[in-house]
Structures are given as C-alpha cells and as structure tokens.
C-alpha cells in the first residue's frame, strides 16, 4: 500500500537553516523538571477574584515555560457578556470602524444569546503584542484557568510562531492600525457623508475575501539595483547582436496586432482590492484609503482563515496538556479538574456525519502526533518514518510553525485517526443522480480521504478563483474579471450583486466570465457603468 508519497520524510530538524534564522531559540527537547511540588493545591472556590486569577496565571505561565512555549506578553482583560458581544460583532477586535453590518451582527448575537440558543464563546483572543485575551465576568474560576491556558499560551504561541502569521501579520501594530482606521472612517463620514462612506465600505466588504495577497510581492528595487540590472541586460543584448536579423524585413501588421492584443494588466491579478486601489480611475483619494484599510484588515485575518484546525487544535491541546500537568504536579484540586474537563469535552465533541469540528480534529491530530512520537506502532513507523519515536516537543513545534490546515492535514493525518473519526469521503457529481462514497477509512482509502480532507481546508478550492483579466484601456474602460472554474463548480448567483459593487468601485462597466477547464466561457455576467 505504501506509495512514494507517504514515504516523504518528515523531519523534526532543529537546524538553523530550517527555521530560516527567524526563530529566536530552538524548541526544548523535553520538558523541564518541576522545581518544587506545592504543599497544597491552589484554592478552588467557584467564584474568581483578581488575586486568584493572578495565582493561577502564575502557575500556568511557569508550566508553559517548562514546555518551552514561546509567546507574546499577555494582557488579560475582564469584560462583561455585553462587551463580549460587542467584540463578537466587530470581528473580535477591540476597536474597529463603524459599519451597519457589525450592528446587524450584534443584534443577531444578542438575540441568540438572550434566547439561550447560543452560549458565548468563553474566550476571545487577539493576535496583538501584547496578546489581549478576554475573560468573561460570568465564567467560574475553573473556566478562567481554562481560558488562560487556552488563549494566553495556546493561541498566543501559535500567533507568534506560525509562518503565516509571521509573514502576514504585524502583531505589534494592529491595534494602532485599527484605531487609525476607525478615526479615518469617522473623519470621512464627517466630510463626505454617512451614505457615501457606507456605500464604499459595502463594496469593499463584498470583495474582502478577494482582497488578499497570497504571495509576497517582490520588494521594490532600489534605483542603484535597477540601473545595475538595466546595464546587465543591455550588455547581454549587446552580446547577442547579430547583424543578420537587422536585415530581415519587418512585418508591420504583426506589431500592430501585438499592440492590440496587449492586455492590461499584463498578468491576471488575483488581489481585486489591490488592483482597484491602485488602478480604479475615478476613486477619490479617501476612497482609495478606505479600500486599503479593508484590504489590510482582510490580509490580517487571512492567516486565521487558513489555520482554523491548527490554531484551535493547538490551543486545545495545550490547555489540556498544561492543566493536566498542573494536576499531576499537585496544583489543581479534583473539583477544578472535573469542571474544566466537562467544558473541554463539549468543545472537542464531534457529532457523526456533521461538519467537522475544527477543535476536535486539531486536538486529536496534535494528541495523535504526540502518541506517534512516544509510542509508535508499526503502522506509524511506515507512515511517519521521520517522526515515529522522536522527541515530541520539537516535532509538535515544527508542525505548528510550518504548516497551514491544508498542508498540516496532508502531512500529519494518520490512518489511526481516520479510523477513530471514521472519516469517509462523498463525491457529489452534478451529472450523477446519486452521491458516491469515494473512499472510506480503510487501507485502500487512507490516501484518498486524507487528500480530500486536506483539499477541503484549502482556501483556493473553497473560494472561487476570480482574477482581474483585462481592462479595456482604449475603449470604454470596462473591467473584465475571469472566474476559472475548478471541477466545473459554478458561481453562486449572488455574483451579479457583487459585480454591482465592483462597478461602483471601478466606476465603469464590469464583466465577469466563468471559464471551465477546457477554456470555454460557460457564463457571463455584466454590469453597466454606474451613473456619475
């Protein structure tokens, strides 16, 4: 059964080169010993006080340090349920610009909460430096301890170390940026009116998911570098001069045609908001700035959307690990244990046939990874030859740093876990009248299920691939977007509405065409230029 693919060696290497010199210190090989056992467990009344939280936090911090978790400084904030809903409504951020959709979100949240249809999340943590974690006033002491371990050490270390977060977010400046954004938008509302600003924001929000960079743009070259490169090119061209070419008659038509065919932009661009910000002909400067603000915020959340399983799993794994260690060390009383374990069990429950719970999957994967390191079976040795039997701390550290959901699952989902979850994949083909079970958790299906699950977390398959294709520069300046269909999946009809938003930002007509794998245009949408 073993193919080349699953023989890929996954090394837990701790060489300097692997981390690109970015990390400050190597992960611990194994946990540091406990200095001294406490004489008695920490007090465990149900109600929290500031002193008790302080005490618990202290022990949790020390335990986390023994595992070598690398985190930003922590800032704990106690808030009320209403404030929690506030934070909820404005995408979890402590400040944000004003927009009606956040008001809608708040109303919906409040309503569900009051009806008891929904418990509030017991924590919100913000990827900032210092890392802000909210503790809700209503939580019991055990829950506060759980939140501290989960958010302040789990999520926090993930934010600080995962490569996507390192690449795309700047934790130290996000709060300042949001404050700036809030003030800027408020200022625009004053100057240009609520309606115009709201319309611009609506349009930007419609494109938010298509307003992120997926790869770093090349750094701007300095003037000196550019000159050097030009010289080099000229020198090279000089070397290639062959007088014979000069004597060939030129074909004029070809050149004219080439000119006509040239598209703008030269290459399709996937960051729609960036393209609009830089190229939309009619946007006012303040509108460009608003586009930029929305784009920046979308970019800030981009890593979170790609690391749901990893991030939640990591945090869940660590609160479980830390609190259990504290119990073993004699810090926690039995009552506390029962209480947080109950919440923990709820958090990681996975109902059959339902959507996959990212907490459950992530927690199971890290736990399983630890097991593979500590007690590998022959199967594990075959699937994970590089990590079976190695030290678990560096292995998990590596897994947390260098992957996103898609690659994490493709790399680390073990056959045992697929059996435990009883994963199976269902193929839904439009042309067939029935669903087909394409693979299940057996020898023949492990590879397939793992790949299918990995793709399920790939943002580029979850969201339609839409790129800026062309701008009619010589004609009516209309913008053409192109949707490249993946597996023949069509766009939702809402696309027409979104196009109106694009047209509002672009200022001229907008077309969208869906192109299937054979290169045929399957459907077109178009919106005329908005009235000026």
């Amino acid at each position, binding site marked *: 059964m073993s193919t080349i693919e699953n023989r890929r060696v996954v090394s837990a290497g701790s060489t300097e080169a692997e981390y690109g010199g970015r990390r400050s210190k190597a992960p611990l090989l194994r946990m540091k010993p406990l200095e001294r056992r406490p004489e008695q467990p920490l007090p465990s009344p149900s109600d929290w006080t*500031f002193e008790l939280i302080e005490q618990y936090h202290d022990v949790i*911090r020390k335990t986390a340090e023994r595992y070598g978790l690398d985190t930003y400084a*922590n*800032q*704990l*904030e*106690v808030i*009320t349920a*209403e*404030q929690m809903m506030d934070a909820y409504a404005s995408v979890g951020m402590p400040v944000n610009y004003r*927009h*009606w*959709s*956040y*008001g*809608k979100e*708040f*109303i*919906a949240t409040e*309503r569900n909460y009051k009806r008891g249809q929904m418990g509030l999340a017991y924590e919100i943590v913000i990827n900032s430096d*210092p890392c802000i974690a909210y503790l809700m006033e209503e939580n019991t002491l055990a829950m506060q301890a759980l939140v501290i371990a989960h958010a302040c050490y789990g999520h926090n270390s993930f934010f600080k170390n995962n490569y996507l977060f390192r690449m795309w977010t700047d934790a130290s400046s996000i709060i300042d940026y949001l404050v700036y954004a809030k003030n800027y938008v408020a200022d625009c509302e004053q100057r240009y009116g*609520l309606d115009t600003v*709201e319309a611009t924001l609506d349009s930007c*929000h*419609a*494109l938010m*998911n298509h307003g992120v960079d997926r790869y770093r743009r090349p750094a701007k070259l300095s003037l000196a570098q550019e000159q050097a490169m030009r010289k080099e090119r000229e020198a090279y061209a000089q070397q290639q001069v062959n007088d014979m070419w000069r004597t060939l008659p030129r074909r004029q038509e070809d050149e004219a045609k080439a000119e006509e065919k040239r598209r703008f932009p030269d290459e399709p661009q996937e960051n729609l908001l960036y393209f609009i910000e830089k190229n939309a002909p009619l946007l006012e400067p303040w509108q460009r700035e608003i586009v930029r603000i929305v784009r920046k915020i979308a970019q800030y959340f981009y890593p979170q959307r790609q690391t749901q399983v990893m991030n939640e799993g990591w945090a869940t794994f660590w609160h479980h690990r830390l609190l259990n260690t504290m119990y073993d060390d004699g810090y926690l009383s039995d009552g506390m244990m029962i209480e947080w374990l109950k919440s923990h069990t709820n958090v990681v429950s*996975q109902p*059959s*046939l*339902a*959507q996959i719970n990212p907490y459950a999957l992530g927690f199971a994967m890290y736990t399983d990874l630890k097991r593979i390191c500590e007690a590998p079976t022959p199967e594990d040795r075959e699937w994970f030859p590089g990590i079976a039997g190695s030290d678990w701390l560096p292995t998990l550290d590596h897994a947390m740093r260098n992957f996103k959901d898609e690659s994490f699952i493709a790399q680390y989902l073990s056959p045992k876990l697929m059996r435990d979850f*009883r994963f199976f*994949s*269902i*193929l*839904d*083909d*439009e042309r067939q*009248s*029935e*669903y*087909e*079970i394409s693979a*299940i958790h057996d020898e023949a299906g492990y590879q397939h*299920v793992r790949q*299918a699950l990995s*793709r*399920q977390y790939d943002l580029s398959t979850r*969201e339609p691939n839409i790129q800026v294709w062309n701008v009619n520069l010589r004609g009516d300046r209309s913008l053409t977007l192109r*949707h490249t*269909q993946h*597996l*023949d999946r*069509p*766009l*939702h009809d*809402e*696309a027409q*509405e979104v196009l109106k938003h694009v047209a509002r930002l672009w200022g001229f007509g907008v077309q969208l065409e869906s192109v299937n794998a054979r290169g045929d245009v399957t459907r077109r949408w178009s919106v005329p230029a908005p009235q000026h």
Partner: protein
Amino acid sequence: MTLQQIIDRRLSGKNKSIGNRERFLRRYRDQIREAVRRAVDKRGIRDMERGEEVHIPKRDLNEPVFSHGDGGTREVVRPGNTEHIKGDRVPKPQGGGQGGGGSQASDSGEGEDDFVFHLSKEEFMQVFFEDLALPNLARTTLAETPEYKTVRAGYVTDGTPTNLHVVRSMRGALGRRIALGMEKRRELHELEARLETLRLEDATKPDVKALLAETEARIVLLRQRIAAIPFLDPIDLRFRNRVKVPQPTTRAVMFCLMDVSGSMDESRKDLAKRFFILLYLFLTKHYEKIDVVFIRHHTQAQEVDEQNFFHATETGGTVVSSALVLMEEIIRARYPASEWNIYGAQASDGDNWHHDSGRCRELLADKILPLCRYYAYVQVAEAEQNLWEEYARLAEETPHFAMRKAVEVSQIYPVFRDLFKKEGVSA
C-alpha cells in the same frame, strides 16, 4: 518576568456597538418606519411607550460575496461512517439545495426567515416622532422624564460628609464601644471587687501582697485597654440616604372626542388616533395619573372603550354638540375641575349639521373651555365647513383653544405647538 497584568474593563466602554446599531437602523429606516406605523395602528393610545419587534426579510440584509453555487463536482469528507464502503451510492435528497452538506451553498440557501430585532422604547419613540415631524424641543419635552424630588430613604454607610448623621453615628459608636469593652469591663469590676476584699486582709502576708500587686497591675492594664477602644470608628458612620423619586404634578383627564359618522374612514381615524396619542404622551410626562375618556358621536354621543372608539363604524348624520354635552356631563359627574386637569381633544372631518355648529361654539366657550387647561381640535379633511368657521372665531379669542387641519400625520404636531412651546419655556 514579562509584563503581565489583568485589566478590569467591565466598567469601561459599555455600549461600544451603539454606533454600529445606529448605522444599522439608519440603513433600514424604511422598514422600521413601516413596522412602527403598523405597531401604532395595533396599540392602544396608552400603550405607546414600549419597544417593538421589527422584522426584516433576510435577503434584504444579505451582504453578497463571490461564492460557489450548486453544481459541478465536489468531494466532502465527513466523520462517523458506520455503514458505507467504497463505491456505495446514496440517493441525493430531493429539492434541497444542500449538496451533501456542501460548504458554502448551505449558508446562502433559500432561508426566507426574517431577521427579527427589538426596537427599544427610545428608538420606537424616535421614529414615531420623526413621522409626526415633531420639532426637537417638543421631542425633548416628551422624552424628558418627569421632575424628580429627592426624598429620604434611610441611612447608608457611605456618603459625603455633608450627609453625615451625627446622632446615628454616635449611637452606633456607643453600641460598638459597649460591645467591645464588655468582657474587659466585667473583668475589671470583678478585679476591683477582689481588690476591695484584699485590702481588708493583712497586707503584710507575702501571698496577699503578691496577689494585690498582680491585681492592681491587671486593673491598670484593663483600664488602658478600655481607654484604647476608639471613640469613633469609620464603621460607625451613618449617612443620610436620599433617593430621587419622579414627581409628576397631579392627575389629569383627557377627553377624546371623535366623529364616527360614515365619512370618517380608516385612514382618517388613523390620523385622529395619532393626534390623540400625541396629546396622551404629552400628558404622561406631566401628570401622575391620567384618565382617558372616549366619546364618539354621530347624531348621538356615547362613551365607549378604546376598542370601540377606533374600530367600530356607524353611519348617520353628525351632530357635534351631542358629544360636547356629554363631555360636560361627565366632567360635572366625575371630574370636578378643582381636582382634575382637564384636556380635550376633538377630531372630526368637519362635517356637521349646519344648525348645530353655532351651538357647539357656545357650548365650548361658555361651559367647557373655562374648565379645560387646553382644548385641541383637528380636522382631518380639507374642506372648510361651518363648524370650522365657528371654531375659527373661537380660536381668535381663546388662547388655550387650538385648531388645525391635518391630512397627513406630519401636520398634526402644529395643533399642539402652543402647548409644547409653553412647556418648553417653563422647563
């Protein structure tokens, strides 16, 4: 090591979302106004000041994004397989747009459920006032809570020095001193008694002498201890507590007079209803107890309940004076002017039996207006008939009689302009 801190945010930044909520309400103003209008129709006029549920269709609130629709090929991984093996085929559910629990399609499906939210009392009134084109001054008059009077409400342990209640504090201190010194004083008394007996004995005996010295030393110690009990301790302090109690002036009665002859259709009645509501709201701000008397009339007048007042239709001619006569009778019987502030509000389409209009004016001028604080008449139709003319004569000479034509809700407020103006100035 690192900077670690717990910040208590509970008291700061309440209602941070209010700006977002305002924007939300602003965006859906039309739907909200419609909901308020419907609510006003349904409610009794005494029942205006509470919030309202507003329903907005979900599709109106949708924020569109590019996403996948149904169709094409997709593969979904789910947990919990117990019965299938590879190659099994499962029939697709009929009709449901949810392809095997597809990822995004399910969220934006056919859900036509309404988005429901609660408009608070303030927001409801805001929209209601906006509809009536109420100027700000009147709005604040209406929104203002009644005057407060501070009244005593016992004692509390915390307060400003000016509120310190000396007698209470000293009484507490005394009690505490007695309680704290009890044991010591009892022992002191015993020792003093023993000292007395010891003094009678032979003081030269060594054991008596030692006992004497010991007792004396103990007495000195106890006296010191008793003296050390603080005379006044912070826990003894008592402060006068005062709470604010709303203090509406007194009681009022409001007479609603309406023509229910055939020419008053639903929309005119609705206009009239808003007119009554406005007066009622105004009165609630100023009076503790308000009675509302509904008198409807065609050729005869009748006192009815609110339901019948607004919703029963009758046909026939119109004799307005019959209502005024009944009103006067009711005042005489139940609401003596010395005890009640009397307000009258009359709505009609101006149609009256022409011989009757003069009598109406006389009735008002001689009997009713002298008893009333304010009398407002609104004509919910355009045409000026003899009732209008007679009333116009009356309005010239009587300051607390107001009249106005209103064919739209926004024209109602001016009827009360004087009423609100007066209050606005005095407030």
